[in-house]
């Protein structure tokens, strides 16, 4: 799977970082950085949760 962030929607609420800090990092510049765009399949539940709980619905998963 591939993690895609719509940066026009992202408002750096950092919920995704709370769920999966190994994939998402909001840095001190207040921008979100995706540390690993292709996380392994065992990360899928966390990625689903990040998609669901993003307040801006800015995260999607492409297969």
């Amino acid at each position, binding site marked *: 799977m591939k993690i895609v962030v719509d940066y026009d929607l992202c*408002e*750096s*609420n*950092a*919920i995704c*970082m*709370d769920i999966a800090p190994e994939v998402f*990092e*909001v*840095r*001190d510049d*207040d921008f979100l950085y995706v540390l690993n765009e292709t996380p392994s399949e065992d990360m899928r539940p966390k990625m*689903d949760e990040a*998609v*669901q*709980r993003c*307040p801006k*619905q800015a995260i*999607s*998963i*492409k*297969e």
Partner: protein
Amino acid sequence: MPETGHQHQGVNDSTPDLHEPASVTVVGASLAGVRGAEAIRRDGYRGPIKLIGDETHLPYDRPPLSKQVLAGQWEPEKAQLIDAARVAELGLTFEVGVATALDVEGRRIEVDGRWCDYDALMISTGARPRRLQEGQQLEGVHVVRTLDDCLALRRDLDVVPGRVVVVGAGFIGAEVAATCRGLGRDVTIVEVAEVPLARVLGDQIGAVCAAIHEENGTELICGVGVSSLSGNLRVEEVQLDDGRTIEAAIVVVGIGVIPNTEWLEGSALEIDNGVVCDATCLAGPNVVAAGDVARWYNDRFDQVMRVEHWDNAVEQGAHAARRLLQGAGAPNFSPIPWFWSDQYDRKIQLAGRPSPDDRIDVVTGSFEERRFAAVYSNDGALTGIFGMNRPRHVMQYRGLINEGASLDDALSLAGESS
């Protein structure tokens, strides 16, 4: 939103089905309702799921209603939570109607005067805005809760020049005020408390939030209530308790919400400032509640709470819907409440459940910079984290709260990262 096939097929190898209901009915086609329906579908539930809502729009997201949609930056469609294709993909049925009564024992619900059977029921009927006693019916007086509310205010802002008066400096009031300032309007906020948001954030941080309004050119009048609104058909003036009068072309009332539970009176459910649920979100046999309308025992905080935040609707919606598919031994719903509010160019976030008189320690930045994070603590125990334009820190310290960390732990994390 992409959806993978294997998630639907997981039904047989996931947790054993203790008493899978023949169908699930969700009253309240809200954020909690939609996320609940999505969650059980993702888990593999294959029975019919029906959502009953009292609006003709497909479910939509509320946060943009006080910001992007109100400002005219987004068309309403962009705030939709789910589109027709996704509804079909998930196999959801929507019905427009108003639920008027519930018979828990008979497993029946009355919608628009007609009784229908249900097997398992989720209540997510949300809350409605509190209104002023006098003058609320005048033209030009608004609340912002539904999409229609938002569009009515937006139309008024388009055609009626003059001052916008916002009653209540809570989060909705503050965001609407900020959006109206962004549109170049003169804005006055009237707040009955001496310090806005003090009941939630305490005096010190409430005062910083107040200063943000003034620095952005919004007039803030605190410590005075609104006694009435007056005008001839259309609102013209706001009368304050201290005798002052403010001219107003448009008034927005944001003085809190009331949970929509009246339709449950006479049902066997306990109603007390919301639908009372146990720690798992169960309100009665085969009935759960979630979102703004639900009041449940959060064992993490040893408190019965009703939480009106977006994130709670998402999480509790999913938890409560899953609860309908689980028997005894279902997990408790024990979140750390979290919310955000965007006002002007500031992002405010709070995680935890602080008391307004808890101790406050700034862990990064400063009040003066208007960019800081501060932890709340009570007797050495961490109770909350507040951030202003510090999302990273809010999530870091939220993690500490999750671990049951102490103030000392928080201060040593602050020391490490400074």
